[in-house]
């Protein structure tokens, strides 16, 4: 393995990357079922606005960004079910607003202390002890929420109106889902950066989508594919000395493509036989 397992750097990165992969792939099933890919992108970009606010008001940077991401996600949960506005447009509006606000706020401030590119592109290789701690703190509620609400979330994605008619607190579940997605996004941003977060939150379930037959099989499959992609990505990034976050996402893309083509081939062969 050309020294991969001797490399202390990679071994240290393995833990957080695996944790992120587990959390993100678990949530990715919900993200795909509820069509929240754009929400994830919007929320990840909204951390920029949070950063701007933090700089202007001299608040601590990362907590403010995290809180702002969750707040933006909740805001979308509140406004999007309203009549006359589809979620896509609502997310676009918030996305644009948050970015513009972030840029205007940051333009007025001295930005020497802001790790803008660290935020944009993330860095999975330099995780501090503190990051590790926050990561674990973040994944506990996410995984807990998944255990508690995975089935209602799944059922809601299928047919929310019927669930509401059954007396279930659909809106509360939805807000919880959005907040948890926001939290997951913050964790991913810490490691993969704003621009790669969407990949971690979409690709695993997208690869599993065609093969899954239900919630559990989908979940397990996307977990497995995500872990495979992440570990392989780290390895390739070590082998060819490429930026790790982007390589992991590229490998997840490759997994997605392989899964799609395999399905297509199988489907095609079957259809071909029948003629």
């Amino acid at each position: 393995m050309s020294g991969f397992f001797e490399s202390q750097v990679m071994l240290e990165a393995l833990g957080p990357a695996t944790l992120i992969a587990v959390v993100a792939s678990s949530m990715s099933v919900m993200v795909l079922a509820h069509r929240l890919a754009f929400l994830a992108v919007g929320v990840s970009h909204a951390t920029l606005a949070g950063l701007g606010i933090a700089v202007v008001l001299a608040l601590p940077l990362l907590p403010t960004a995290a809180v702002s991401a969750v707040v933006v996600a909740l805001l979308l949960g509140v406004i999007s079910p309203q009549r006359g506005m589809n979620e896509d447009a609502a997310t676009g509006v918030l996305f644009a607003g948050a970015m513009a606000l972030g840029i205007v706020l940051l333009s007025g401030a001295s930005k020497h202390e802001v790790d803008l590119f660290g935020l944009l592109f993330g860095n999975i290789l330099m995780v501090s002890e503190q990051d590790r701690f926050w990561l674990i703190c973040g994944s506990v509620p996410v995984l807990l929420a998944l255990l508690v609400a995975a089935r209602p979330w799944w059922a809601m994605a299928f047919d929310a109106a019927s669930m509401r008619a059954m007396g279930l607190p659909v809106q509360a579940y939805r807000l919880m889902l959005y907040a948890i997605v926001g939290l997951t996004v913050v964790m991913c941003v810490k490691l993969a950066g704003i621009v790669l977060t969407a990949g971690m939150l979409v690709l695993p379930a997208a690869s599993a989508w065609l093969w899954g037959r239900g919630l559990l099989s989908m979940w397990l499959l996307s977990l497995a594919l995500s872990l495979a992609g992440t570990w392989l990505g780290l390895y390739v990034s070590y082998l060819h000395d490429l930026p790790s976050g982007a390589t992991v996402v590229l490998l997840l893309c490759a997994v997605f493509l392989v899964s799609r083509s395999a399905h297509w081939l199988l489907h095609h062969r079957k259809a071909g036989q029948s003629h």
Partner: protein
Amino acid sequence: SAGGIVTTLPPLTGLVLLLDADVDVHCLLPPGADAHDFQITPRQAQLLKGADLLIRSSYDDRHWSGLRSNKQVFDLWPDQGHAWLSPRAVRDRLPALAATLQKLSPQRSEQIAAALEHALTSSKVVEAAWIMALAPLYESGVIMQHNAWQTTLREFGVPVWGVLETGHHGDDIGPRQLENALELMRKHPGAVLWGNQRHPDRALYWLREHRGEAEVKLLRFDPLGDCGMTWPQLMQRNLDLLAGHASQ
């Protein structure tokens, strides 16, 4: 890995090489890259982890996250940006750097001490060359987009009429700032537009497009150089750039 010295930016490597040509020194920022969108790769992270000494200039690289986990860190300029471009600042910090290097490799202590002497004199030579080369600018002054060279030029007494980017680079420059720059350029018709090669000097190009009848020169310098270039070489390269443009 085998230890050695890791620097964040190429000019810091140049300073180390100036004092100790035999030392094992690596630079994190790859040649040609922009310090602002630097992303560490696995091998660099490994180098950093195993390094005996990290040399940085935290005013310029403080936004690089995760640089803390090292055995020893020597921070050359915690409160001055692009300070290696100023011979005076270099002269001020070279002895401390030499002391650190001596501690790291005591067996070459004497060589380093000798090199320091030599470096200090060569910095004076560089300074003199710059004062000569900058002579035509004492009247006309400069307008720059990024503030890399601001301190240095001020030290040399070259008037800097305006710096378009106040903070970090990448600012979406506000309309008034742009308008003021336009006015400055008209008020100081000979002013040189002072740019950087690894920096999108879009505002400067725009200014040049709006120069009207006036003769405006746009010069682009290289404040970072490449890893392996010693500090005098870096300064000479920029002198060449200045002379090359001047002769055009």
